[in-house]
């Protein structure tokens, strides 16, 4: 992409950023929602580790770090823009974008990236605030190799989530009822990705099933790398798997998009 082309998406980023901050009260309420999820899970793990300091092979510090880390990763990885894609297609609003000299996928990604950046900064603040308020022990990773692998796995997880979520939203080209399947997908992804609890606390057979799915690479893998529970081989294998899934889903999304455009009727305009 040329510099002039990239500028357009920088403008989309800035507009989306301003839009997020336009309704500050609503933004505050959205963040409070996120804090409540973090509080609930933190207290569950604190209660379970109260006696021995450990639970299911995790120390208290590891479990609390997992919950706090997930709060930040949710903001970095999960976005809401792809939901808008389904609405744009179903309501015919996509026509307005098709006439513009922008790539809809890049435009959506730029808008989502602004939202993710803003939420990630706020989530970091929340983690710091609750670290002091709850006086909990957190595991601070200092190993540069682990931190590099963690950063790489987070970046790939964000891309993987975007492609997965975008693909489901593109169902809207074939059906006016795409929001229901997206709701179902979101909940399967939330749990199967490890956004609520480390997946290996499940029964071994169930964990083996979840580990086969790409969802586990979205949240569980980056956090296991950060906690140092995944050794170098496991981390590299996980990152390679992320790259494979992206290589599969990226072209698939483009293919679905092209096929979908042929079906698009601009209904509602």
């Amino acid at each position, binding site marked *: 992409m040329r510099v002039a082309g990239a500028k357009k998406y920088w403008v989309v980023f800035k507009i989306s950023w301003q839009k997020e901050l336009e*309704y500050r*009260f*609503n933004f505050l*309420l*959205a963040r*409070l*929602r996120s804090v*409540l*999820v973090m*509080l*609930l899970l933190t*207290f*569950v793990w*604190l*209660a*379970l580790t109260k006696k021995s300091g450990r*639970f*299911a092979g995790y120390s208290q510090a590891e479990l609390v770090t997992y919950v706090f880390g997930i709060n930040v990763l949710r903001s970095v990885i999960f976005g809401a823009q792809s939901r808008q894609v389904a609405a744009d297609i179903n309501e015919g609003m996509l026509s307005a974008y098709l006439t513009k000299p922008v790539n809809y996928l890049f435009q959506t990604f730029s808008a989502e990236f602004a939202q993710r950046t803003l939420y990630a900064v706020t989530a970091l603040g929340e983690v710091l605030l609750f670290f002091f308020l*709850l006086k909990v022990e957190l595991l601070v990773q200092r190993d540069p190799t682990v931190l590099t692998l963690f950063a790489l796995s987070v970046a790939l997880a964000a891309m993987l989530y975007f492609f997965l979520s975008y693909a489901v939203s593109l169902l809207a080209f074939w*059906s*006016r*009822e795409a*929001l*229901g*399947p997206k*709701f*179902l997908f*979101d*909940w*399967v992804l939330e*749990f199967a990705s490890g956004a*609520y*609890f480390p997946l290996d*606390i*499940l*029964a071994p057979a*169930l964990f083996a099933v979840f580990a086969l799915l790409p969802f586990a690479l979205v949240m569980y893998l980056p956090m296991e790398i950060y906690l140092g529970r995944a050794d170098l081989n496991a981390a590299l294998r996980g990152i390679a798997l992320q790259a494979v899934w992206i290589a599969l889903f990226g072209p698939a999304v483009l293919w679905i998009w092209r096929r979908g455009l042929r079906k698009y009727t601009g209904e509602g305009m």
Partner: protein
Amino acid sequence: MITTALIRKYVRIWRQLSRLAIGSYLSNRIDSAAYLAGKLVRFGFFLLLIVSLFSFTDTLAGYTKYEVILFFLTFNLIDVLSQALFRGIYAFRFDIQRGNFDFVLSKPMSPLFYSLSRMTDILDIIFLVPIIGLIVTVMGRLPVPPGPVQVLHYALLVLAGMTVVLGIHIITAGITIWKLESENAIWLYREAMTLGRFPPEIYSPAVRAVFTFVLPVILAVAFPAKAALRLLDWKGTLFVLCYAAAFFGCSLLLWRASLKAYSSASS
């Protein structure tokens, strides 16, 4: 004054609104099936989490597996029942933002009743069947199964919990009139409700106090389970009933004040 004729009128309205809502759900079968499947997935995964936790421990905050499951199911009962009956409040923001609330005000009925109940969620009513079935099963497996008195006690406190939850829905509607961009207010309540998935003893005293008295979700969803477990005496019950009534009264006062502040987006 509430008369029999008035109650009949509102029952008729609710029935008609529900018929329309059911028609809407049936005309979007894929969406409806996927939403119902999504709710079952969410419910199933949390249940799976609780069961998985108990493969590593015998108790959580002093409660056994089936006692913790009862807290979880009671949270679901009240949460799903409120979504089934008061789903209309989720669309209230659009009415306010687009000025459609003007038409609601001109109808010969309570605008609050219409706004709350205009979209009875048939999917949640279907979802109530397995939840109630599981509550009956789990109650039978408790270390000390509840007798008829405890079951009545439980039902009474579920009713009190629903009154509190109705009050919270009314407050969020009031806030929407004051602050147009408060889309997340109802979702904040939904997230707060999830604190009732687990026994309140796991939270710190400060968190417990906030969610018992300020945003009384613990009072609404955890106290009925405590009643079934014989952990709530008559003083506690009286307190819950009085607090629920007072909270509901305050929410109505806020609603009236909000109505006076309504300035119609379309005019």
